[in-house]
């Protein structure tokens, strides 16, 4: 092992020990994959959804993401935003000055926050106050020329504005209409939603985080994972609806409750209750069905001298897995937990709650004087599955992801140099890969392109609308 445990030497790793040996042992399959996916060369390949035009009257992350999946796969997406203001997500940014300028011609001192990233790539951004009777004609024209629309307003709002499914299907029977929102129709019809509400109300937060018994709380995920997750589920619905339309020639309506989507990740929770009346509980970084199979806290940070506290203080967690009997034996041998091995020889015994509390406490005790990479190294050397809990910087610096192209820099045509990790990490497709052409555009940036070039309105009319703030 190298002196500095952070350094990984090739001779310490399992597998080939030199470049020559690697060449010799290299599987042709890997070469094949490299040639097939060819990271960096995506723009030379066709787009799967070329020819699909989608309208996006969406906000924040959940519903925009359902459409951004389409846009990355080549659909022509027209994002319709409120004039001057745009999607409220543009105004939500993490700490500090994480805005990219400009937002809009009329607001030179306002930018779009980084929170908008990954939710609206490759889209044409127009502005339109579509609830005005004066703008209905333009809205309906777009409906006639599009394959579908995603909206996120309270149930019935688009109906009141005469642009819900029952209106638009009269204009375009092939139209696929998606409503994405909080609770869906039913007694709680008017409840709105946020990611945190979805996580909380669906029961997901109640099984996330450690149990109160060991110092935990019901926890939401730091990121808006249910926004991203349920948006992706809508995309599946849209693709299925497009397939159905090829057979029947008819559009359809998709109604999608974010709160209900989150229950999908709950796995066996409801059936468990149905069978035994047991309410599923939280088990934090451990596993209810496998042991040892969890994340432990190590005593020393991997970067004790780093300036950033996320590195200096937090780079201390390691994932360890050794639930099979042989692996468990090995883990007990390397950690010196012989008494625990004698006590919990079978998996059935060690997966019990009391056993897990004892086992993980002992593992953390063993890791008390070790850094994260030492713990991982010791486990890996013993043939066990172990990985450090990485932060964003480590993800960025990881050669594996760089080689696969899932983290990469892009030169956005408007906003310049942007680090991208979203589009290309959502699965590799050999023939029709996802592509990222631009991260987003300013509010109303494509007004002329869509109103004039696509719909044929004269520019004088577009300017008049602009003056009145209708677009």
């Amino acid at each position, binding site marked *: 092992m190298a002196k500095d445990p952070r350094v990984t030497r090739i001779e310490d790793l399992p597998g080939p020990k030199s470049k020559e040996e690697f060449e010799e042992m290299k599987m042709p399959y890997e070469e094949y994959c490299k040639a097939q996916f060819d990271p960096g060369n995506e723009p030379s390949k066709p787009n799967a959804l070329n020819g699909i035009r989608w309208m996006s009257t969406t906000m924040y992350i959940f519903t925009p993401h359902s459409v951004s999946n389409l846009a990355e796969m080549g659909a022509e997406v027209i994002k319709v935003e409120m004039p001057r203001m745009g999607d409220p997500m543009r105004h939500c940014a993490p700490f500090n000055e994480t805005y990219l*300028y400009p937002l809009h011609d009329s607001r030179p001192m306002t*930018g779009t926050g980084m929170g908008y990233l990954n939710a609206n790539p490759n889209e044409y951004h127009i*502005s339109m106050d579509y609830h005005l009777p004066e703008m209905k004609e333009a809205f309906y024209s777009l409906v006639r020329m599009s394959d579908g629309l995603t909206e996120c307003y309270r149930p019935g709002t688009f109906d009141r504005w005469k642009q819900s499914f029952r209106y638009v299907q009269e204009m375009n029977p092939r139209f696929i209409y998606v409503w994405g929102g909080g609770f869906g129709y039913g007694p709680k019809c008017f409840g709105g939603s946020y990611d945190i509400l979805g996580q909380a109300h669906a029961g997901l937060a109640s099984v996330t985080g450690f149990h109160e018994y*060991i*110092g935990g709380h019901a926890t939401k995920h730091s990121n808006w994972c249910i926004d991203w997750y349920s948006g992706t589920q809508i995309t599946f619905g849209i693709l299925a609806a497009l397939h159905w339309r090829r057979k029947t020639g008819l559009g359809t309506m998709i109604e999608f409750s974010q709160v209900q989507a989150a229950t999908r990740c709950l796995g066996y929770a409801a059936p468990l209750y149905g069978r035994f009346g047991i309410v599923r509980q939280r088990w934090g970084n451990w596993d209810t069905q496998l042991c040892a199979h969890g994340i432990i806290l190590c005593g020393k940070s991997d970067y004790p001298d780093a300036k950033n*506290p996320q590195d200096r203080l937090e780079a201390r967690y390691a994932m360890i897995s050794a639930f099979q009997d042989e692996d468990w034996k090995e883990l007990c041998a390397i950690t010196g937990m012989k008494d625990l091995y004698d006590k919990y020889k079978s998996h059935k015994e060690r997966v019990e709650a009391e056993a897990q509390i004892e086992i993980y406490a002992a593992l953390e005790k063993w890791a008390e004087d070790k850094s994260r990479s030492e713990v991982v190294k010791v486990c890996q050397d013993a043939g066990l599955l172990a990985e450090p809990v990485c932060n964003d910087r480590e993800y960025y610096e990881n050669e594996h992801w*760089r080689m696969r192209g899932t983290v990469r*820099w892009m030169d956005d045509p408007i906003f310049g140099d942007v680090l991208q990790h979203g589009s290309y990490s959502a699965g590799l497709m050999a023939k029709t890969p996802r592509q990222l052409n631009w991260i987003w555009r300013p509010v109303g*940036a494509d007004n002329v392109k869509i109103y004039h070039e696509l719909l044929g309105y004269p520019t004088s009319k577009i300017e008049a609308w602009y003056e009145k703030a209708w677009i």
Partner: protein
Amino acid sequence: MCDIIWCKKDFEGKPCNTINYLDPYCFWNWEGTINCAECGTVYYIHMIQGKMYKGPEERPGEKPDTSPLYADKPLDGYRFYGAGVEGRTRPFECLPRDIYLGVPDMVKFSIRGRPVRGHRPQPPSAGIAGSYGFNWDIPKLSPDLWEEYQQKIKNGEVTEW
């Protein structure tokens, strides 16, 4: 919350009456001394699995090992010591204070030294109805930034990653 220390020590002529909150993340299994956020009295506690096994016992003259996460005075209106009050509550180390200034910090270049449009104000589009072209022509629209960028290239400050 796993437990509190309700300090009732005489302080400035009346009972201190400060509730010091012992957050479970730090104190779930913990033994040591801790100061009262208001009067500074040092208490010894020993907690096991979130339960106060020993203490709080006063330890006058000892240096506290740590401080409560935050503290308040419920009998005294809404007086409150948040996290990170120096000498009273535990330092709040979640954010690098030298980076997060609380004021806009205009970034013109990404961490690999290439220009980004993350600064203001920006020139208007000069298009109809807020329309934008598809390319930000740096030398034409931001000549200062372009100059700075050329300098960076010369200095070798522009990298691939």
